[in-house]
């Protein structure tokens, strides 16, 4: 049972990674990250069940709070970038180029 839940978690996580690295749409990338966070949450809750402690639940809560904070900031950034460039393509933003 635990293995099945963890497998689901891995599956979602990997899909999240694929989304992050192969898509160029800012929103899709952002939501893929959220997906990875959720996969992690699922793992936390599963382990909480395995170990019979509720620390995993608390961690999941904290992750959600962080996700909320991240969503707030990230969307602000997206709005800003959209205002500047009028684009949602991650390839437009290459300020880190060496």
């Amino acid at each position, binding site marked *: 049972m635990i293995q099945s839940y963890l497998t689901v978690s891995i599956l979602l996580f990997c899909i999240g*990674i694929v989304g*992050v*690295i192969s898509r*160029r749409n800012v929103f899709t*990338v952002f939501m893929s990250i959220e997906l990875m966070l959720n996969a992690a949450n699922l793992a936390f809750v599963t382990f909480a069940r395995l170990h019979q402690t509720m620390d995993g639940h608390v961690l999941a809560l904290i992750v959600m709070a962080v996700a909320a904070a991240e969503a707030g900031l990230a969307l602000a950034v997206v709005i800003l970038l959209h205002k500047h460039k009028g684009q949602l393509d*991650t*390839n437009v*933003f*290459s*300020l*880190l*180029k*060496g």
Partner: protein
Amino acid sequence: MEHNVTFLGYIPLLPLIGAAVLGFLHIGTCNRKPLNEKLYGLIACVGPVLAFVLALRVFLTLKGMPEEARYLSQKAFTWFQVGELDITMGFLADPLSSLMLVFVTLIGSLIHIYSIGYMEGDKNIGKFFAYLNLFVGSMLILVLGDNPVVMFVGWEGVGLCSYLLISFYSEETNNVLAGNKAFIVNRIGDLGFVLGMAFLFWAIGAGGFDFFSLKANAHSLTPGIALAVCLLLFVGATGKSAQIPLYVWLPDAMAGPTPVSALIHAATMVTAGVYMVARFSFIYAHVPVAGEIVAWIGILTALLAAIFAMFQDDIKKILAYSTVSQLGYMFAGVGVAAYSAGIFHVFTHAFFKALLFLGAGAIIYAMHHEQNIWKMGGLKNKMPKTYITMLIGALALAGCPPFAGFFSKDEILFSTLATGHYGIWAIGVLVAGMTAFYTFRMIFVVFHGEPRDQEAYDHCHEAPAVMTVPLIILAVGALFAGFLNLPAIFGGNQLVSHWLAPSLVEHHPHVSIFIEIIAIGASVAAFVVGIRIAYKRFAVGAEEPQFSGFCKFAYHKFYIDELYDGVFVQPYKKIGNAIRKTIEPSVTDAPVTLASKLYMVIGTAFKVFQVGYVRVYAIYMIVGLSLMSLLLSQSLN
């Protein structure tokens, strides 16, 4: 008799104190109100004169001692002592050094007095006298040193003074260059001296490094080391005493004031090399080969310098080359182990050469710093005292009996003949003729004939008494000094040789009186021939000749200065410049430059990965994670 005395140290110390006092006075006042010149002259004379008095005391004390125990010594303090090396600041007066002592202080004092007149009106007179006093002090340390290292202090000290005095008129670049040349060439010789000392020390120095201990241990030197020591020390002597190949600095050294040329570059400092070889006679006596080399280099220098002297037209240069030539004689003498003959020639030469230089100085002074003999002429009427004294000096130099130079030079030539060095003797006789020729060429051109520059002639006048009195004293010396060592054939008993005998290791060969007569006859003949040619060519109305062929070659001193410049000086500078311009920036800097280049290359290589897309960075990360996973899966089983 007590050997340890306490007054030896004062002999060099007095002039040194004089130098310090003069130096401080000069530095303190030269850019403000200068002090009275006479005051400087007075202070300057105190040191050498007192030293002369002390030197006489030393001489007399030694004379009162039994012949075999004639020495005085003073160990002032331990100078430095490291391991087996133990150097005492000590002074030694034995017959050899006492003889040097007396004439150095005597001639030094006379030249100080003369300089009061000669340097009149020079605003740097204080500096001049300070240097001159410093020189006398250093020379006395050289003479009195009881071990080679103390001797070396004086040795270098006189070199320094020589440098300072040659470049005395330092506003002229050439004068300073001449001073540099003298110091650097002397330093090359000093390297030989230092190395010689080092070899000597490691061979026999552990038993004490003063001359007494060295003399006692000299027998344990191996021939190879002894030869090396002799030759290295002789390199030092060639530097100081202007022998082949290091003679080039002495003619240039005439850039200094004339009293300096007389004192340092004729009478005292340049003879230090001869003194040193005589001092180390206990080693040279063991290695005849070294003596041969010394003698041959000496006589060849004598020949070369005599050739140059015949074609010079600067009065001081003529005398300078003549000095080199006479020094060559002295080395020929000490080379054939006739140390007392060499030292005796040092002694007489000091008188007549100082006399000639001072006479030349008086002429230059009278002619307003004109040194070209072809601008002079007929001066004997205007400057009779100078003429007479210089004539005495010239006769002594040329080897006219019974003047001083005749006896000493003859003694050397006789020794070469007696020891079987016929080649050296033949060259020596030839050089004697040439000496007579160039000396009287100078005398005739300067004093006889018609004035060549009427205006200068009219303004010319006899030098003041302060200059002529030393000339007269020296002339007396040049006349009679020779009798001190009158050989047996003339009824004398060789006072000087006997006096010096305890200090030297020499053997007087017994030869027939016939050989002695040959030697004397040849010398006299050479003198007569030389003076006759000079009289014919230059006595009346000679004009400045134009040289060609060999004469031109000799007039340009065989281009040896140019050769040295081209072979040593210029390449040295070129190497330095090459290093500065190419090797430093491109070769030795290479490690640093390469290190920075390497970082740049690596950086540029990694720059390719910095595309700037966050997604690509994520891909890098994931690829890395993926590879790690692959790796870890291997180990999971």
